[in-house]
């Protein structure tokens, strides 16, 4: 972590999976990579409900939410979460998606309110730039410098 980046509160990012999906390898790796960039990760892991995520968002006062999917039902789960976020008044918190997201579904995901989609082939640098842009907080773009 560089001294400059330490002087402001770091980005607080909640990472979670919804539904019965068990493929947690990607999101667990992302949690470590984001910590390298000075992000405070609130890692909820697999098997969350939309209500559980909304409660954690409020309790942890997060800046951004990241969801990962390997099952094809991501549109249904994500739409449901965003509905619950609106009902709880936390829909100003940007949501990003990763995992096996098919390009054909991107327009529908953006329409329900997803702010960032990082499907197969996305890099950590792209996610880091996104986090800096949507939160307006500084983030160490170079992980090596942050360590």
């Amino acid at each position, binding site marked *: 972590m560089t001294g400059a980046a330490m002087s402001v509160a770091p980005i607080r990012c909640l990472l979670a999976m919804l*539904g*019965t*999906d*068990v*493929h*947690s*390898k990607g999101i*667990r*790796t992302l949690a*470590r*990579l984001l910590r390298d960039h000075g992000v405070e990760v609130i890692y909820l*892991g*697999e*098997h969350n*409900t*939309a209500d559980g995520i909304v409660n954690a968002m409020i309790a942890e006062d997060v800046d951004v939410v990241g969801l990962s999917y390997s*099952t*094809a*039902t991501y549109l*249904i*789960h994500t739409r449901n979460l965003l509905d619950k976020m609106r009902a709880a008044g936390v829909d100003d918190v940007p949501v990003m998606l990763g995992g*096996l997201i*098919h*390009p*054909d579904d991107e327009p529908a995901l953006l329409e329900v309110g997803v702010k960032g989609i990082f*499907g*197969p*082939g996305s*890099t*950590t*640098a792209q996610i880091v730039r996104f986090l800096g842009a949507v939160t307006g907080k500084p983030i160490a773009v170079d992980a090596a410098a942050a360590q």
Partner: protein
Amino acid sequence: MGDKPRSEAPLESGIRDRIEDVSVKLSRTATWSGIETQPSYSPADVADLDYARDLGDPGQYPYTRGAFPEMYRSRMWTLRNIVGYGAPEDTREGIERALAMGSAGISIVLDTLSQEAIDPDHPLLSADAGQEGCSLPTVRDLEVLLQGIDVTQTDVAWHSTMMVYPLVVAMATKQGRDLSKLQGSHMPDHLQLRLAGWGEAIMPAALGHRTTVDCVEYAVRHSPRWALGCPQAYDLRERGLSAAGEIAVGMAIIKQTLRDLEARGMTVDQVAPSLAWVSAADIDFFEEIAKFRALRRVWARTMKEGFGAQDPRSMRLRVACHTAGRSLVYPQPQNNLTRAAVETLAALLGGVQSVETCTYDEPICIPTEEARELATRTHQILAHEVGAARTADPLGGSWYVESLTNRVETDALAMLDRIETMGLIKAIEDGTIESWMDDYNYKIKRELERGERIIVGVNRFVPKDAAPPKRFSFEPARMQAHIRRFTERQAARDRAVLEARIAELFLIAQRRENSHQAMIDALIADASIGEVWGTVRVANGLPYDPFRAVESPFRYSGP
């Protein structure tokens, strides 16, 4: 360059870049798992190797060179084509098509809900029902799926863990079949579920391990011809283990299981002949071959020296292999055909007994018909054209392969020792093994991002303007009818019988006795998998529904 016109320089360097980009070169001298490799190997690298002690002929202890003397000449490998999606009727249709295409047997995978023992009408999770596998919540659904198939005559392989075996036994019992003749296999390793993403919420380590021990005990005593894919090391490998790590964690699981079965009065020679190792064939060709060879040697010595096995069938490990889903990539997915073919060949040269070759579209969706057919053709090309079946252990005696076999074994035994020093269950419960897996994945990801490790299409040679891949889809109407039928049947059951069976199950599970017979009896009384497992969970002090959205429909009373 300096004397050329300036305007040509960008063109010139553009061509150079393109030549650079397509060139084939050595980008890595370590194996995919990280074992450093010498430029060449000689007899000096395997000077300590003793043929009789360390290798033996194929079919001879310690089985390094293969489980059987003539290998594929006497027993061809089994081509597995795993099918599963939607309602039981959908999966049955898929099975029929796979058989028509040349699949040798029936292999079924269940949907994500059934794999977590959750019913398809769950208020928060219904959308996931029928995804990635067949929805199979009751014996009645199993009867639809396997209509006309005699499970004491036809081998059905279940690529699933939770509740599958009790469902099959319940159906066979209802049909009046002789359980001692029950054919087929499943993967009773519940402990690996805890590590492979089920997590403590769905599958607590201690309960998972006890359920494995219960299932193996019941299956060996009642259906000795039923094969048990245990350890299920494939999912562990996929989650984040090296080749040596697969051997280490898998052996730790099987050793703990055998010790606990011994405490129940069973011997290794009663249990081990029913076991088969569920393995992965990842992308590093030589390392995977070395792994299969080292694995058989470690297994043989453990069974003989550690558990006092006398039956050669206990020491002779059979391996059921699946090519590594994690090695396949989304960009330019046709390249996955090459990857899966090389992995399949490694598995065969490593001497496995069955292979399920991933379809090239695995990173995208449930396999399309076309992709499934190509996976079958891969096997046929290897069998008929390449010569993969011709002779046992064709790479045995290669200085490199023998040296690598030794190294994988040494690394595996060191990691196994670390796990056993900590205690397996504790090393799982306190997150130690998961953090090793995270370290492994993190290291690979960092190397990819730095360009120190190359995956074609991912961090180099990225295809430009690739069209999005095609997706498998199926008509959801049957799935909706399946869930409706499930709810209607729930309401039409003989409530008194059902409640009596559930009450019995609760008491037995609460006493920490083997609850398999009670689970089977409850399933025969038309309890669903969610109800049966939910009852076991409550008896173990856990919420009925791990998502805490469904209350148990039963009242439980303790002793």
